[in-house]
């Protein structure tokens, strides 16, 4: 997964996550472990120095300060301010931006579009990836070749995936659109909002199935052979073994992928929308993150854009926490 993009996709806090005991308490509890690490995430053999680590951390923290902490805090502040489009005057307005936002029907319809889009994208991506993962887990020959081909979309930028499908489904020149028209469907994503929405769902899924697929294949491989063999001896066929044993055992991976797919659908599909439908027709594909961009950079309604940012931040935080919960379960499940 794109590592930044994977931002929220990183449940590795391992040693750092979870409950942290205060130092004296930790000593008390961990004493029995003898030489166990006295501080979480610190090597037992370590260096006692503070100047060098300071310089080692400085670049990372400095960039974070400039481009993460200050902007995030300013987004929070701006959400409670009203600034005119030319930036001349700023006044403190409390929760007015939010009130205005939640009363705006355009915002709610954008939220609705986002909900439909992310759920449709999630279901489509995960079910196709599961089908492919089951199939490639079952066959013996040609696994590697299929995997190579199925991974290709990872190399393709979301924007290109969008442009590609926009071409294939273009009512004037697209071969697929011609087929649909041949079937008697009056296909036109430039005018029909459902057609436009299904176009970006397809583009988003096309790009993301490979990511789900590779994780599912890895998860299926880690299902203990002994359990599968005993099921086989009891007379369970391949499909039954998949549905009754493998699938329940990989539910943690499924949860993880569902959260990742939501993160992807909410934030990373910006490029697909911007490169193909630009939110149209008539706001039918204007997902929340696209609306933040439009209000912030096109219509210059900064207060509203900042309030929308805060709402999205809350969503991102929620998903991150969801991810951590599922990851804990994932750790418990693994054999």
């Amino acid at each position, binding site marked *: 997964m*794109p*590592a*930044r*993009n994977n*931002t929220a996709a*990183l*449940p*590795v806090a391992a*040693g*750092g996550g979870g409950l942290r005991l205060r130092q004296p308490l930790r000593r008390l509890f961990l004493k029995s472990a003898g030489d166990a690490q006295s*501080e979480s*995430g*610190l*090597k037992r053999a*370590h260096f*006692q120095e*503070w100047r*060098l680590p*300071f310089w080692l*951390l400085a*670049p*990372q*923290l400095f*960039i974070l*300060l*400039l*481009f*993460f*902490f200050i*902007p995030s805090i*300013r*987004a929070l502040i701006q959400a409670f301010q009203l600034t005119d489009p030319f930036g001349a005057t700023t006044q403190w307005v409390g929760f007015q931006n939010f009130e205005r936002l939640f009363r705006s029907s355009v915002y709610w319809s954008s939220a609705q579009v986002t909900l439909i889009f992310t759920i449709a994208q999630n279901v489509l991506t995960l079910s196709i990836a599961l*089908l*492919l993962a089951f*199939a490639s887990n079952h066959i013996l020959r*040609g696994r590697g070749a299929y995997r*190579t081909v199925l*991974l*290709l979309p990872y*190399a*393709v*930028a*979301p924007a290109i995936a969008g*442009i590609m*499908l926009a071409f294939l489904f273009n009512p004037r*020149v697209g071969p697929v659109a*011609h087929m649909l028209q041949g079937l008697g469907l009056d296909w036109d994503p430039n005018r029909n909002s459902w057609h436009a929405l299904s176009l970006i769902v397809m583009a988003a899924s*096309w790009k993301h199935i490979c*990511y789900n697929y*590779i*994780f599912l294949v890895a998860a299926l491989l880690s299902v203990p052979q002994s359990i599968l063999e005993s099921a086989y001896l009891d007379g369970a066929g*391949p*499909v039954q073994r998949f549905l009754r044993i493998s699938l329940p055992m990989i539910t943690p991976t499924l949860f993880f992928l569902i959260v*990742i797919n939501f993160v992807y659908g909410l934030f990373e599909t910006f*490029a697909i929308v*911007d*490169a193909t439908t630009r939110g149209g027709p008539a706001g039918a594909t204007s997902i929340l993150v696209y609306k*933040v961009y439009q209000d*912030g950079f096109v219509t210059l309604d900064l207060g509203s854009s900042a309030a929308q*940012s805060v709402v999205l931040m809350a969503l991102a935080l929620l998903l991150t926490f969801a991810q951590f919960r599922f990851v804990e379960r994932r750790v418990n499940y693994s054999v």
Partner: protein
Amino acid sequence: MNEHTPILDAVCHFILLVGAALVCLPIYFVFVTGSLSQPEIMRVPMSWLPGNQFLVNMQTVLSSADFGRLLLNSFIIATGITVGKLAVSVIAAFAVTYFRFPFRMTAFWLIFMSLMLPIEVRIVPTYESAANVALPLNILGSWLGIQALVDLDWNLVNTYSGLILPLIASATATFLFRQFFLTIPEELCEAARIDGASPWQFFRLILLPLSRSNIVALAIILFLMGWNQYLWPLLLTTEPAMANAVIGLKKLMPQSDSLPTWHLLMNAAFLTMLPPTLVILILQRWFVKGLVDSGK
């Protein structure tokens, strides 16, 4: 288990073939369309076989749309992000795992927090920070009443550093290296210290060589991510010559009233996705490792 399931085998191959076709057909059509001429793409139904105009179209794309420059920009940005992220992450991970110093956990949690808010949710203020890096000094200056600080201005719009720097900080990569360092045997560091190695020598001579496979795997993922950047270059470039290739494609999108130049757009799209595709095909083993590592 030695089962004989010919029907299911056939069904599975069929599913995988359909999947592979769904992946390949759009890419194939990009290539086909990129190799046709203007009249040929307007023909209904369009040809399913490639034409002979690929190089001609490519030349048009490279010269008229200045696409060569955009591809070069993509390469510079992707390389810059990859090298920068790896460098700041590996040293930060070294600092938090191998040193005991005040505020160690604070530093760790500060980096950790950046996982939670992707750039998409804070685009306006992040843009403002890049449009004037001296912004925090301006604010400080206006509090303290120092006019010299208020007037500072350092604009990163339309510069490579503006396109690269904000994307360099990475909790993902830092955690990956941290996790890896925690699995390295304690004896190595003890032995190095007994032999009188300084922390920096230990890092350079022992830790870095051990991390090589992780670095390669992560570098591939980061390069692909950097190459496919969209939102940040879109915001930060007003000059067409400073955009990356993906943004350049958007400008080639046919507008409704002009003669549609899909063949040029598809040719350019093919050129843009060729480098990352080759990376995946050639370095597949590393790529899968990087993908799974950075996801878990």
